[in-house]
């Protein structure tokens, strides 16, 4: 449990947070039209007659969007409603061609579910369950452009009609950190499922943040809703600002007004957009252009079968079956791209090497990528190459030191490790004759040290190892070198 508290003049305050996350459904076509949905296209180049709400145009549901919402619901272990319906949310705005948004108010496609979050990746005890209230499907609106003309605003309808899932949490979060962990975990699950790319900077995911404060144990306070916050960092900042603002208002004798606010990322503050008194009356009613969405058992079964192993299950398997540390398991499963990379590697290398592979990935590869400013998806080393490198270590071809050298060359050249070893002669040698010969030379050159060692100065052993390896340009098999040195030194 979080013990996040705001320390006000009148004592401690608890923050209550609920999030409505709008996630763009991964689909090549819009929710009710065949228009494309590519990000960053020329304004108004992806607009069908339906999206522009021409007279007599009718929406036709895109099955793929419905499928993705259902799969998402299943991934959140939520109740799937076999019967749902689209409603119209009526309001006027220039970015809303129909004069209404097609959404689902009364009968959403997905009901209650839950997400488990970990506040500390190293500690299973930090787990907390956040309830999901519902998921519904709805259309996105277009975009107004105010910088094109001195006295007019332009409208870009490319996003008009793009399919969104609105994932509504219960007011279960109690700190900005919990909210951040929730959004990251949700994004991770969506990416695993493949129902949303989770790219917040492209607007594929954004959140409406509901915040209220109360004295611990008291009933819920009045909440405000901060709209369209588009990064985890901003969501956390908006909560922190808003909670402190509410405490200030309440402690100076004011009351919180239920209102819609916006977040200003430059000033890191929230501002009032409109209060409940001037709120829209959306006049929701069932969309008469659309039939109810009825899901068959076959469809539901297909959705369920198509679900991949999800992050929590994967994390538990990495720990229990592969023997990874909780921390490594958590990090390697947090993003589907990481897990996929790791599993590609294991597929080549064999699961029995999972612990070593995980350690190498976490330290060597992540360290290198970090240094290069790259991510795993554009890593210069492929999972296949990594598997080859680790195999060369496993079969004794490379020592740990040599493997690091080879890895550096791989990063630079993109070459396969086998080719590098071959080309540069970096193979480690376990040839006892050759090693004994070098040892003899080292001992001859350092007769005084040999005497000292034999006189009881055991610490000098490391010196002989170093000299031998140096003389062999690092290629001596360290185990063999150690063994033979011990024998030679007596």
């Amino acid at each position, binding site marked *: 449990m979080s013990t996040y508290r705001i320390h006000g003049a009148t004592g401690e305050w608890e923050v209550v947070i609920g999030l409505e996350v709008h996630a763009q459904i991964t689909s090549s076509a819009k929710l009710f039209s065949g228009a494309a949905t590519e990000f960053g296209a020329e304004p108004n180049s992806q607009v069908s007659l339906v999206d522009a*709400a021409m*007279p007599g145009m009718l929406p036709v549901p895109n099955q793929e969007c419905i499928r993705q919402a259902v799969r998402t619901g299943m991934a959140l272990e939520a109740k799937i409603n076999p019967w749902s319906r689209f409603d119209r949310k*009526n309001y006027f705005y*220039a970015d809303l*061609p129909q004069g209404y948004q097609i959404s689902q108010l009364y009968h959403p496609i997905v009901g209650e579910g839950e997400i488990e979050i970990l506040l500390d990746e190293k500690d299973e005890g930090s787990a907390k369950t956040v309830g999901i209230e519902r998921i519904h499907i709805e259309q996105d609106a277009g975009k107004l452009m105010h910088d094109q003309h001195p006295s007019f605003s332009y*409208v870009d309808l490319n996003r008009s009609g793009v399919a969104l899932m609105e994932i509504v949490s219960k007011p279960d979060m109690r700190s900005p950190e919990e909210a951040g962990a929730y959004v990251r975990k949700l994004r991770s699950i969506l990416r695993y499922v493949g129902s949303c790319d989770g790219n917040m900077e492209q607007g594929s995911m954004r959140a409406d943040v509901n915040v209220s404060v109360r004295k611990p144990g008291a009933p819920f306070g009045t909440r405000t809703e901060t709209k369209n916050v588009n990064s985890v960092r901003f969501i956390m900042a908006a909560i922190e600002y808003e909670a402190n603002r509410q405490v200030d208002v309440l402690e100076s004798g004011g009351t919180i007004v239920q209102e819609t606010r916006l977040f200003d990322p430059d000033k890191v503050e929230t501002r009032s957009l409109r209060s409940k008194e001037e709120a829209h009356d959306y*006049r929701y009613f069932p969309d*008469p*252009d659309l039939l109810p969405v009825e899901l068959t058992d076959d469809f539901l079964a297909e959705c369920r079968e198509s679900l991949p192993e999800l992050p929590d299950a994967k994390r538990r398997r990495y720990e229990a079956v592969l023997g990874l540390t909780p921390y490594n398991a958590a990090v390697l499963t947090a993003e589907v791209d990481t897990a996929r990379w790791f599993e590609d590697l294991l597929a080549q290398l064999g699961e029995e090497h999972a612990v070593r592979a995980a350690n190498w990935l976490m330290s060597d590869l992540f360290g290198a990528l970090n240094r290069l400013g790259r991510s795993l998806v554009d890593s210069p080393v492929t999972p296949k190459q990594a598997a080859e490198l680790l195999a060369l270590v496993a079969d004794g071809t490379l020592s740990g030191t040599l493997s690091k050298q080879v890895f550096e060359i791989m990063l630079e050249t993109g070459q396969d490790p086998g080719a590098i070893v071959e080309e540069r002669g970096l193979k480690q040698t376990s040839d006892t004759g050759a090693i004994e010969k070098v040892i003899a030379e080292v001992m001859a050159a350092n007769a005084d040290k040999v005497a000292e060692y034999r006189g009881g100065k055991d610490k000098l052993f490391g010196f002989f190892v170093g000299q031998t390896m140096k003389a062999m340009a690092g290629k001596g098999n360290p185990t063999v070198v150690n063994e033979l040195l011990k024998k030679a030194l007596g």
Partner: protein
Amino acid sequence: MTDLTQLGVAQIRDGVRDGDFKARDVAEAFIAQVEKGRALNAFVIETPEHALAAADAADAARASGDLKPLSGVPLGIKDLFATKGYQTTAGSNMLKGFEPVYESTVSGNLFAAGAGMLGKLNMDEFAMGSSNETSVFGNVLSPWRRNDGGNAGITPGGSSGGSASAVAARLAPGVTGTDTGGSIRQPAAFTGISGIKPTYGRCSRFGMVAFASSLDQAGPMAHDVRDCAVMLEAMAGFDRKDSTSLDLPVPNWEANLSSDIRGKRIGIPKEYRIDGVPAEIDAVWEQGIAWLRDAGAEIVDVSLPHTRYALPTYYIIAPAEASSNLARYDGVRYGQRVAPENGNLTEMYEATRAAGFGAEVKRRIMIGTYVLSAGFYDAYFNQAQKVRALIARDFHQAFESVDLLLTPTAPSAAFGLGEKTADPIAMYLNDVFAVPASLAGLPAMAVPAGLDGQGLPLGLQLIGRPLDEQGVLNAALAFEERAGFKARPEAWW
């Protein structure tokens, strides 16, 4: 030579096929009639080039032996249907000058079947009205006149007023109409022609300017039952672009036409006998019952207990849907835009919609907005949805014991222009017999039955089970054979 404009859809099709006349001659004859009939104000735009091109194609097709189901037939298209490259306004100032880059499925189906277009037909604005007095293009006149010598302008009914007037005056052999709460059937009854609203979902709504989506259905209006069957076959069909269209094959309604209705059970709903309806309506209804009995049908009294709630239910649901459907006319992307100097977005909306919509449309947008608003939704819209389900259940139960229902189409004959414009409720009452079938999504057809004392046509309505257009058409054919309705308005225009 026969006056080609006296022919109906099937006769023209057959005549062109049999080489009795050229499709070109038919098109030219109707084009001339359309020009001569301008006083009726039935057409908003005339498109002779479209009709002629289709006629020439028909003549060429005959020569090469690949005639289509409607080759050689020129039609009028209600201005609610989007016609590619031709102005489509829904009778509204909001869309004056709007030329769609797309074709409605229904008009596209008709053209694909070989039909040509004589022009776009006048209508009540956004199909809201029962007298064709709300069009921005002005009133449509019925070709009919009262025989009192007063020469008062008579309404052709609405909202498909231009459609009805054009057929009755023989400016077109057949036309498209649309029916939300009687807009095909009431004008057909007022002008002595036939018109069928099929089961909801038979005709695609794609490209049809929406009024109330859960009720809107396209249908044909023509001189007789056969012509309606021919046209409906071409208009109907599953359309992927309309989620509510029915994924069913289109039956061969014309080929299966039969006036043999012996043994059919025809229900007479007692709730359709309402106070204040002229005796002539009851009389023609009794006459219709007698004709059907004569045709061998069994007449059965039935009850549709929730009938009295149909009209208020309709006038909640239809405006509610309309208030939302018409939100897209905001001046941003197409149609009228009135942008006050230095005005903001809201002011542009207000000015555009104030100038773009007429009084009746504004009234319904306000009613619809009200019944959907917070605090009133449950009392009005939600309640109306529940009552709608009860009305549908009434029909369902009645159809357990009968095959069809026979009722009046409208509670009066056509009235004079201006007689009801001051009283919206009186105007809405015109739809009292039409809206129950609309709310239940049932096929319903208006057929002419006779004339009232003023010499104006009266019609009756046949309502069938869902998807039983065939049963409706067959009973209508039996009715038509016995009614022998041959009255024609005298050409005064």
